[in-house]
C-alpha cells in the first residue's frame, strides 16, 4: 500500500520532468530579454528550424542588464538593451561585432532604424522593437482627460500612481515635466528633477516595472508611466485602460538585439537574431508583445488598422516631439545612480 502510494507520487513527479534528451543537436543559445517582451512559442519554431535550443531569462531594466553583465561570469549570447544602453556598452567594450553575413534578414529592417546615433556604423545591433513611453491610466477611475506628465505628480491621484523602477526612465518623467532635456548633464537640472521625484514619492503606490501589468489590469492602481507596447498588452486585458503620449514630449526608444562580449555561442546568437528578423516571426511576435516592429516587410504586411494605431506607430509629428536617450558621461551616470539609491531609500 505504502509502496504503491510512493510509486504513484514518484510517477506524478517524473511525468512533470522535461524529457531530458531534448533534441538540440546544434547546441543552445542563451537569450536574455526584457520581461513580457517576446512570444515564447517562437523558441520552439526556432528549435524546429535550426536545431538550436533557446535558454531564456528575463531582466527588468537596462540598468539591471548592465549590472548583471558587468558583474561577469554569465554566459548570455543575445541581449536586447535599449539605445542609450547600447552606446554605453559599446563604449565600455561589452559587445561583440555582429557578423552580418549570418544575418541576411537585416535587409527586412527599415533603414530608418539602422545606423542610429547609438551605433552609427550599425556594427553591434539589430533593431528588435521600438516605441515611446507614456502614461497609461484607468478611465473608470480617473475621469479627467490626461494629457501630460503633470498627472503623475498630481496630489489628486495619491496612492494610485505607479512610477518606473529604473533610474533613467523615472528621472525622464520629471525632466520632461520640468521642460528640460532628457539627456541633460546639468547637475542643477537633475537635482530639480530629483526634488520633484522626492515630492512625488508619498503620492506613489510604488516603483514598479512589469508588476504594473497586474496592478493596472486589476484596477489595483489607476495611473502609471510605462512603455507603449506593454500598455497595449494591458489594454487588451482591460478595456478601461487608455494610453497617452504626453504633449510636452516623451522618450522614443529603440530596443535592439546585441551579442555581449565573449558570447560562447556567437553563431547561434546570429542565427537567432536572423530568425527574429524574419517577416513571419516579426508578425507573430508583434501579436504578443504589441511593440512596433522595425521590419519594413512586416509593417507592410500588417492590416491597415494596425498600421494606423497611433499608440503602436505614432505619427512623425508626435515622434518629432520625442527624444531618444543618449548615453550620459560617466560622472552623470554615477550621479544618477547615487540619487536613485537615495530616492528609493
Amino acid at each position: 500500500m505504502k509502496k504503491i502510494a510512493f510509486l504513484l507520487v514518484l510517477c506524478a513527479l517524473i511525468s512533470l520532468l522535461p524529457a531530458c534528451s531534448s533534441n538540440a543537436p546544434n547546441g543552445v543559445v542563451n537569450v536574455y530579454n526584457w520581461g513580457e517582451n517576446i512570444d515564447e512559442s517562437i523558441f520552439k519554431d526556432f528549435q524546429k528550424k535550426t536545431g538550436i535550443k533557446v535558454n531564456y531569462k528575463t531582466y527588468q531594466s537596462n540598468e539591471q542588464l548592465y549590472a548583471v553583465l558587468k558583474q561577469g561570469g554569465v554566459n548570455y549570447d543575445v541581449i536586447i538593451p535599449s539605445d542609450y544602453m547600447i552606446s554605453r556598452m559599446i563604449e565600455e567594450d561589452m559587445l561583440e561585432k555582429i557578423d552580418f553575413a549570418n544575418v541576411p534578414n537585416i535587409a527586412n529592417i527599415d533603414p530608418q532604424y539602422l545606423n542610429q546615433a547609438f551605433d552609427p556604423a550599425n556594427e553591434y545591433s539589430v533593431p528588435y522593437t521600438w516605441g515611446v513611453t507614456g502614461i497609461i491610466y484607468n478611465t473608470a477611475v480617473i475621469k479627467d482627460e490626461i494629457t501630460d506628465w503633470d498627472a503623475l505628480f498630481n496630489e489628486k491621484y495619491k496612492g494610485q500612481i505607479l512610477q518606473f523602477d529604473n533610474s533613467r526612465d523615472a528621472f525622464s518623467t520629471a525632466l520632461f515635466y520640468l521642460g528640460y532635456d532628457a539627456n541633460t548633464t546639468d547637475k542643477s537640472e537633475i537635482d530639480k528633477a530629483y526634488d520633484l521625484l522626492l515630492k512625488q514619492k508619498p503620492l506613489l503606490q510604488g516603483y514598479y516595472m512589469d508588476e504594473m501589468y497586474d496592478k493596472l489590469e486589476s484596477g489595483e492602481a489607476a495611473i502609471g508611466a510605462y512603455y507603449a507596447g506593454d500598455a497595449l498588452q494591458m489594454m487588451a486585458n482591460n478595456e478601461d485602460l487608455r494610453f497617452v503620449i504626453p504633449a510636452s514630449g516623451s522618450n522614443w526608444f529603440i530596443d535592439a538585439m546585441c551579442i555581449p562580449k565573449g558570447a560562447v555561442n556567437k553563431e547561434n546568437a546570429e542565427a537567432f537574431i536572423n530568425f527574429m528578423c524574419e517577416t513571419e516571426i516579426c508578425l507573430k511576435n508583434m501579436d504578443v508583445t504589441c511593440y512596433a516592429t522595425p521590419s519594413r516587410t512586416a509593417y507592410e504586411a500588417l492590416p491597415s488598422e494596425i498600421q494606423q494605431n497611433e499608440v503602436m506607430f505614432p505619427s512623425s509629428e508626435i515622434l518629432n516631439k520625442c527624444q531618444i536617450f543618449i548615453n550620459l558621461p560617466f560622472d552623470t551616470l554615477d550621479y544618477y545612480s547615487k540619487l536613485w539609491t537615495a530616492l528609493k531609500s
Partner: protein
Amino acid sequence: MKKRNSFGARLFTALVFLFLYAPIILLIIFSFNNSKSRSVWSGFTLDWYVKLFHNTGIRQALWTTLLVSFIAALVATIAGTFTAIGLFQLKRKPRDAILAVNNIPVINADIITGVSLSLLFVSVGSLFARLFGLEFRLGFLSLLIAHITFNIPYVILSVLPKLRQLDKNLFEAAQDLGATWIQAFVKVIIPEIRPGIVNGFIMAFTLSIDDFVISYFTAGSYVQTLSMQIYAMTKKRISPEINALSTILFLTVLLLLIIINVRQVRQEKDAQKRLATLYNNKNAR
C-alpha cells in the same frame, strides 16, 4: 507538563495554524480558478494543470531544482557525516574553531552568503581566464557548489549530537571482536547515527529546494531554479500554473509525511507491544 490545555489556548494555536495556512489554502483554491485573477473566483477549471504539463520552462526549472537539491543534499550528507565523525575525534580547541566556521553559513544572512560566493566565482573566473585562458562561468556547477556549501553545516550539526550519544566503546569492541575498521564503521557506527544522517539529508534537501537568495546570486545565465523562476514571475504576472505546481508539490510532501508518520506510529506500537510481551513473560516467570 502534561496538563490539558484550556479551550482558549487551543483556539489560539488553531488561529496561528490558520494564519500559517491561509495563503497556502488560497494558492491551492486559485489553482483551480477559471481566470488569471488572484482574488476573484470565476469558476472551476483544471486548465492550469493541463498547461503546466506543457510548460517546458517550468518543468525545466523543476528538474534543475530537484537535481541540484538532490545532488547537493547527497554530497553534503556524505561529506558532512565523515567530517562530523572526524570532528568528534578532534581535541576540543580545534573542534570548536572548526565548528565556529561551520556556523557561519547557518547564522549569516543568505544574501551575504550569496553575494560573497558570487564575488568569489567571478573573481576566480577572471583570474583563471587571465592565467590559463580558461573561462569559468556561473552555471550549474557554481550553483551546486553554493548549495553544498550551505548544506554541509546543517548535516554536521545534525550528526554530531548523535555521535555524542554514541557509546565510545562500541567501536573498539567491534574491532576487538575482529571487525576491520571499515566493517566496524559501516556495521556499527553508521546504524547508530542513522537518524542524524537521515535528518541531515532531509533538512539539506528542504533547504535547497526552498532556497532563493543564494541561487539568485550564483546561478548565472542559463540555469534557473524554480524559486528563481517564481521570483521572475512575481516581477510580472504569476501564472496560476505555478499555483498548480505548488499544489502538486504540497500534496506530495503531505502524503509522504503522512506515510512516514503512520509508519513511525506503527513501529512505536509494535515496540510497545514487544515490550509489553517481554514484561508479561518476565512476570509470568
